């Protein structure tokens, strides 16, 4: 059964890559699939397909709760030969962190940019942290290579995005500056916060830490307006039903 709405969950940081022992964000994206034993494919491209990262994914997404696989674009002789068919048959595609510039280059070389759009449109839930969040947006602020830089992502979501948005790291300032210079408005997320989009609309912000927040940023004249978005802490009892209903999504606070 395919879900109607395309969904993307963009983590500012968190999940098994960064929050060992805190499965709240990973549980949340698994829940969105509404599958009893979801098929989850990990794309570790941004790390250069680092072995240790793939191992950590399989530990976190163990066989008793999902059917896990990964695609290594540096070792195509192993793994599925038909990338499109494999990815379109998933319930969840999970993109790891690392270098977003390298990630986008390698994806384009293997045609993943168009396959992932197709997967998204057909209802496969897409998620990821850091580089795995930035990639879904039209524009992104990356600080991976030293000084923060602007870059173009896949553009499934027509906004800009900034991750690891904690204060005192210089990213906030850089993001504001880029916005004043004409970057389109968008969303930022702190480590532990995740932006959940249904279609192109932000439906809610969820968090694996009580204090983690997401932000909406817009430009008004020459001024940048930054709004904190009401965030649901996933650790609160009853914070989220395992599989959120569409009604719940549409009424979730978005500002």
């Amino acid at each position, binding site marked *: 059964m395919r879900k109607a709405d395309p969904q993307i969950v963009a983590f500012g940081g968190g999940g098994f890559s960064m929050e060992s022992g805190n499965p709240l964000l990973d549980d949340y994206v698994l829940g969105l699939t509404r599958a009893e034993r979801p098929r989850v494919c990990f794309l570790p491209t*941004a*790390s*250069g*397909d*680092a*072995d240790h990262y793939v191992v950590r994914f399989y530990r976190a997404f163990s066989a008793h709760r999902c059917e896990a696989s990964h695609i290594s*674009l*540096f*070792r*195509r*002789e192993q793994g599925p*030969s038909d990338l499109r068919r494999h990815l379109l048959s998933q319930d969840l595609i999970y993109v790891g962190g*690392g*270098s977003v*510039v*390298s990630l*986008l*280059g*390698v994806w*384009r*070389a*293997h045609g993943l940019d168009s396959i992932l759009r197709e997967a998204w449109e057909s209802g496969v839930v897409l998620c990821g942290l850091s580089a795995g969040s930035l990639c879904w947006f039209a524009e992104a602020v990356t600080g*991976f*290579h*030293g000084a923060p830089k602007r870059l173009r992502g896949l553009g499934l979501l027509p906004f800009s995005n900034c991750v690891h948005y904690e204060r005192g790291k210089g990213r906030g300032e850089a993001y504001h500056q880029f916005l004043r210079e004409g970057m389109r408005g968008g969303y930022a997320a702190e480590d532990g916060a995740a932006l959940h989009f249904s279609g192109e609309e932000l439906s809610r912000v969820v968090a694996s830490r009580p204090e983690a927040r997401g932000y909406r940023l817009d430009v008004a004249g020459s001024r940048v307006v930054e709004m904190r978005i009401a965030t649901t802490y996933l650790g609160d009892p009853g914070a989220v039903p395992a599989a959120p209903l569409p009604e719940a999504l549409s009424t979730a606070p978005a500002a």
Partner: protein
Amino acid sequence: MGANGRLPGAATPVRRILALGGHEFSARPPDRAVCELLLRLAGERAGERPRICILPTASGDTSEQIASFYSAFGERSCEPSDISLFRLGRRPVALRDHLLAQDLIYVGGGSMLNLLAVWEAHDIAAILSLAWRRGIVLAGQSAGAMCWFEAGITKSSGKPLAAAGLGLLSGSLCVHYNNEPERRAAYLDAVGEGMPSGYGLDDYAGLLWEGEGAPSAVTARRGARAYRVSGREGQVAESPLPARFLPAPAPAALREDIAEFRRIKTMRKRAGWLG
């Protein structure tokens, strides 16, 4: 050849590329012979302590490839370094400045498709082309050898397929030539169907371009050869090239503490202390 890779009296530096069909950075004799050649080429440009940088991009910057590079060059008279494009977050590098300060840039093997895609994303191609024109030696094995040509045969997508390279050298290259028969077969087919003519390189065979003109072939293992592969009206001709044999240098002397440790281990083994 004079200092800085310039021929005496020549105005422009000699452009040099060493393409290798396949090798490792092990302590085995043919691998030592390849490393000796790399050091010699770098040394001809710089003298005493040439700077040698590995780009392990095609492997996804695996620590394995980087570690084996340092194990081969770490104790030698040179300044080895690496640029890991997937790790710039932890180790920012001024890419252009660092690469243009080298005497030799070595490109490791892996996925040719990903190598070129990541280089394009980071604007590396223009820097490498400039380095080449300045006389910095460009070298590499497998994907790191084919990348300098117009085209190569890569298994980056699973089965062997043609892929475009940077095109600093005209023509095409197929690596692991007689070591991977399906790759050679795909290459011969591709050349028959119009891929530019070029070369086949067995593991431990290499081709060295120095300035204009034909390359010279080298081999670090008996029986490993370089081939000229040309297509003409659907017919493909393959002819081995005469190659200069690269002798392996004597292995580096063991450090005294390691030698001592091994002696003790041998004695213990003889005494039955270890399984």
